[in-house]
């Protein structure tokens, strides 16, 4: 086969490969760079017009093959179509826009820059690498650290500590001293359980809990709570209360009997 025919076949195959391999590309710039290489010229001398046409052809072919193209491929296609029109139409001097040549030059710069990075990336990867070509000491001797800890305290620390202990009570959080309080809830519970025993009139004082029936604050608290509980039970209809005279003993009786 003649050379030109062979080349035509090769080019067609390359174009097909481009479309089929679309997923293998790292974005539209990568496709453009690959296409630009087929022009076999310095990237600075590249025909951006021809490149734009090739890319638009690539996108059209990909869509014909129903290959899902990412949006950025289509954005690039739209931009290149615009660039193509700017390059073909005479510049509009009134428009405050970059010229088609400026845009084309920038695209060429981007392609050249990407190719440059790829070239140096390959050079970098070809270097002797640690752990592959070059090796560090296999048996490093660990640097041992001998740590001496000294403790420090000042006289002020000691004095403050002592002051702290001696004044601890003053700073204790305020607690209600609950031990001298007999609550109505406690009394109510106690009275309910004792209701059955009050078949006859009995003195309220007899129902005070053990340990609360002596004199003083504890007794006062217990009497108040028990009386309040008794009133509660009267309201419920469970109990009757009576007091013969002012300050006389309060008596109670189970109402169910």
């Amino acid at each position, binding site marked *: 086969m003649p050379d030109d025919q062979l080349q035509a076949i090769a080019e067609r195959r390359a174009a097909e490969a481009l479309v089929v391999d679309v997923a293998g590309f790292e974005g539209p710039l990568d496709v453009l760079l690959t296409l630009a290489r087929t022009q076999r010229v310095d990237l600075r001398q590249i025909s951006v017009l021809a490149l734009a046409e090739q890319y638009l052809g690539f996108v059209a072919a990909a869509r014909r093959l129903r290959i899902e193209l990412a949006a950025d491929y289509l954005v690039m296609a739209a931009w290149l179509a615009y660039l193509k029109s700017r390059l073909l139409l005479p510049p509009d001097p009134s428009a405050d826009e970059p010229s088609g040549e400026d845009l084309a030059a920038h695209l060429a710069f981007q392609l050249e820059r990407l190719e440059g990075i790829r070239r140096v990336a390959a050079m970098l990867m070809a270097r002797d690498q640690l752990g*592959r070509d070059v090796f560090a000491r296999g048996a490093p001797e660990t640097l041992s650290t001998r740590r001496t800890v000294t403790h420090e305290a000042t006289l002020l620390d000691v004095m403050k500590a002592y002051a702290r202990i001696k004044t601890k009570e003053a700073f204790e959080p305020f607690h209600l001293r609950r031990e001298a309080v007999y609550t109505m809830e406690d009394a109510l519970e106690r009275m309910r359980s004792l209701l059955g025993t009050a078949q006859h009139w009995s003195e309220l004082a007899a129902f005070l809990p053990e340990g609360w029936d002596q004199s003083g604050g504890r007794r006062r608290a217990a009497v108040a709570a028990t009386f309040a509980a008794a009133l509660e039970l009267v309201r419920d209809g469970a109990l009757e209360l009576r007091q013969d005279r002012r300050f006389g003993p309060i008596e109670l009786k189970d109402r169910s009997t």
Partner: protein
Amino acid sequence: MSGTLGSLFDTPPLIEQQRMVEAILFASAAPLTLREIAERLPKGADPEAALAALATHYEGRGVHLVQVGEGWAFRTAADLGHLMTREQVETRRLSRAATETLAIVAYHQPVTRAEIEEIRGVSVSKGTLDHLMELEWIQLGRRRQSPGRPVTFVVTDTFLDHFGLASARDLPGLSELRAAGLLDSRPTPGTADPDAAEPDA
């Protein structure tokens, strides 16, 4: 005995300092900075002179004294790598995206993510940057003093160590890239690039 004890005596002669630096560096797998070396030498020692003498002594040997960023380390000679098949660490080949991203960070540093994307023409997946950070080849640099104060990425001393580079200035092909103007930041015509900044700092 301690390192500080040495200060009670005269500073040892250079040949002795050389022995000390040799032992200190031999014992460590990771590079040690001049400062780290100096801290362990007796007072008055001249680690720089000792390092220079040591580097000469190891020239042409099976083990070399190499500079890695701020640090110094002994490394086997590259031409003998084939003998160390048993020590070779199996490393997963870096993906194309990761290789290019690494190169962009190395040659354009400090560089923002937006700039990496602009150069590659494709968005950078977070996984790629994470992977390079896990390898400790790149790290966060200073924030760019531009709107949004984007973070920048720079290469690390571990990167230099891995690729046998004394400094980022020794990157292969760096001068060619610079001469071709490919490290310049050129905003797209008609746009004001907010991240445009000095390509090299």
